[in-house]
């Protein structure tokens, strides 16, 4: 290969590293948590709650920054108190393939925001909306539903399971279907 071509190739490889994931740390403060309709009933097992698609979901579900912030908040807000690092205890396990109310971002967001029967408290007004989306994105990554290139890596402290970016997809247990 000609040296000029090699240098050009090297330069383009180096410049490729300049592409950086966007971090939206300053959401529009006018965007409150009222974008989704408030549910009329609370007793709707089997994921019957209306969960219209929300255009915010896509911006959070595969974003490495938001996923790792979600992981931090999961620890800070003591979600482990019931969900035990995703393994489940008083609350359901989050790292298996079972989703009582569906696995969509919108559904998990609604769960955290409005609560669910049998113990899940509503965090409406207690967690800013964007942080609820971050938590929802992280919860999905616990069952392997986030790309491993974006899912959070190693914990800062000891952890009972491998980091989220090394967890197999719960539905297939890592095998091809």
């Amino acid at each position, binding site marked *: 290969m000609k040296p000029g071509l090699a240098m050009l190739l090297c330069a383009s490889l180096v410049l490729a590293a300049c592409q950086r994931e966007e*971090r939206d*740390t*300053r*959401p529009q*403060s*006018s*965007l*409150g*948590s009222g974008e989704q309709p408030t549910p009329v009933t609370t007793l709707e097992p089997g994921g019957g709650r209306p969960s219209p698609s929300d255009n915010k979901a896509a911006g959070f579900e595969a974003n490495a920054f938001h996923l790792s*912030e979600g992981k*931090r908040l999961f620890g*800070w*807000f003591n979600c482990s108190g019931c969900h035990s690092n995703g393994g489940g205890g008083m609350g359901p396990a989050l790292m298996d393939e079972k989703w009582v109310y569906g696995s969509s971002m919108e559904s998990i967001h609604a769960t955290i925001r409005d609560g669910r029967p049998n113990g899940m408290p509503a965090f409406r*007004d*207690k*967690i*800013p*909306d*964007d*942080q609820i989306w971050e938590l929802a994105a992280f919860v999905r990554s616990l069952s392997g539903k986030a790309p491993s290139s974006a899912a959070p890596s190693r914990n*800062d*402290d000891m952890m009972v399971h491998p980091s989220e970016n090394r967890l197999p997809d719960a539905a297939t247990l890592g095998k091809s279907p």
Partner: protein
Amino acid sequence: MASAMACVLFLQGCAGWQSALDPKGPAASELAWLIWFFTGLCAAVWVLVMIALAAPLVLRSRQRTEPLVLDAGADDRKFRVVVAALGVTALILIGLTLLSFFANRTLAAIGSDAALTIRVTGHQWWWEVRYENAQPNRILTTANEIHIPAGEPVRLIVTSTDVIHSFWIPSLAGKLDLIPGHMNVLDIEANKPGIYRGQCAEFCGAQHANMGTFIVAEPRPKFDAWLNEQLQPAAAPTSGEAKAGGDLFVKRPCVMCHRIGGTRAGGTVAPDLTHIASRQTLAAGTLTMSRGNLAAWIADPQGIKPGAHMPVVSLNGDELNAIVAYLEGLR
């Protein structure tokens, strides 16, 4: 002359509340003396070497006129000069090593009988400060500002919860790393009352430069009074607006992370706000404490410290004013 003036002006910047060249404690004095001695000795050696190198160039004209005549003693003289230089180098190195060793011993001995132990925990990007006490109800947790009694050794146990930080109060002591899952011990002492600024000295993320701290050294009675005051629960709001702010604080996301003693707010992942208005600064040395800065910080923390873990909380103008009025009263 001009360069001497420039030098004096330059060295003026070395004084002040954050300078290792302006020591205010025994540890910093020891280190300052050591660095000046090292620098002086090394400078002297450098000057001597330069003179030795320049001398033959200057003296060349007086050399013998016939270069090819053999000088029987020359090799012998050169050998002796090299051996002497080697000997002096070895002596200087051994001397400096010993000086450094004894300085370290002096530093280690400073806090051996410290009466006060403070735990300093580094977070991205603030300092958690916990005053240890044998009585659990006298353990105090605060943030970013460390009060110590002047003239007494204080033992600091430093650690971190996220990444490696480094604790550095240049006027009082050398820097020491804060490592997750590991505790390091640093003993400090301030000779006289004063305020000394510190700075995280290990790159720890986007807001590393905005991770400052203050050491406030006070006479013992004043320090004890401060500690007793800080142990009290938060002041009850006086005005109607402040009262509304207190209610809002526990209703809105603030309560998830911050603690205010004596109220239902019990979060421990962010700075304790029980006596926030008594501190000199906000956001780890970034803003001075004032009503306007409090409002600015709450309204848009990400504009002041982008990447900090305090999110933008949606509050309307009245809510913001009420919360600021409440926090302003927490002295």
